[in-house]
């Protein structure tokens, strides 16, 4: 149980660092919509990948959970794209 909790901390830390870096890049390139759309795609893809890897290591990766991360990744991208496209 302790080992599982430790793995959780590592995996959540990876997600936290990832979102922090992308958040900083968002701020740095805030006037460049082309780069921001690319970063939105990277964030979306990275989140899907994180979800799949995390659940695979947990031994809980199912088609339903994979689909859930994919639709959430798409939702994240579309939330940003709706603003950046105009």
């Amino acid at each position, binding site marked *: 149980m302790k080992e599982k909790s430790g793995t959780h901390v590592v995996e*959540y830390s990876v*997600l*936290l660092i990832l*979102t922090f870096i*992308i*958040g900083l890049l*968002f*701020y740095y*390139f*805030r*006037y*460049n*919509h082309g780069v*921001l759309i690319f970063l939105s795609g990277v*964030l979306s893809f990275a*989140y899907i990948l*994180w*979800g799949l890897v*995390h*659940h695979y290591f947990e031994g*809980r990766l*199912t088609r*339903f*959970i994979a*689909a*859930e*991360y994919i*639709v*959430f990744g*798409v*939702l*994240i991208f*579309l*939330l*940003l*794209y*709706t*603003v*950046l*496209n*105009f």
Partner: protein
Amino acid sequence: MSVLTGRKKSNIVKDWRQRPKSIEKFQFVHHFLPHPEDKKRATLLSNKAIIVYCAAMLLIAGIFRFLPKVVPGVLGYASDISVKDLLTYTNMKRKEAGFSELRLNSSLTSAAYQKAEDMFKDQYWAHISPAGTEPWDFILGQNYDYIYAGENLAKNFKNSKDVVEAWMKSSSHRENLLSPNYDEIGFAVVNGVMEGYETTLVVQFFGRPRNAAQVASVYEEQTVLEKESARTAAVSEREGEPATEGTSESVQKSVYTQAPSEEPVIDLTTATKTVSAVFGGFVGTLLALDVWYSRRKGLHKFTGHTVAHLGILILVVASIWFVLTPGIVL
């Protein structure tokens, strides 16, 4: 007491079996809260529901693209940009970098206005017009004989500070803005309709006159700024008047009067940010409810991590509201 409760319970169950519809109203709550029996999230957080939200957002984005073609000028970018502020911020950046301040020149200002009006008239957004007119043609057209000249363009920005900041963030525009080769500057801030969207174009021309004695004086700069104020006031008064055709004045007038007012009916930036915040906020609220309810009831669902979804969604919605700004530079 327990016997009474048990009897009461059996009566309720009997009633539910006889009239299954009577419990449906209690099931409604699971549109918003997790299903304890199925160990699933709320119905409105199911994968199908998220796909519906994605489709709805695509549909709204499609409407925002299609609407300007049918009703030009309704959607657009509200702005509060002035030549005076652009000059102040530009010179502030130059001063910070250790360069001399630029003087506002009337010929460069006129050339910038002609360029902006040409872009609205021929509906293009480029340094070189579809007819092949280059920025230097506008400058030379005002009899400004130069050794060095440069052009920066911007559109869809909300305020003068953001315009200058965006130019500073782009290496080629910053090179122009901080170049020691220029002595003078000219700005045009023109409202109009571009590809159906009400917007503000900003043209910035730089120059160094061949004859150093021709560099604009403080008096000329003041005159240009006063003219700018008068022009802004005249445009505000002129809006709403019917356009006439034939003269160059009428070309300028028709550009302004394509849209009924300087401000669009719907500010596109606010509209798109609101759409994202509504969908993101709704899904985020349901996820927060999911975390709270699951912890309270000790539910372990066969789903992905709700806290991770919630965290990433908060980051995205916060970025949309506090980081993303409208505007493109060229």
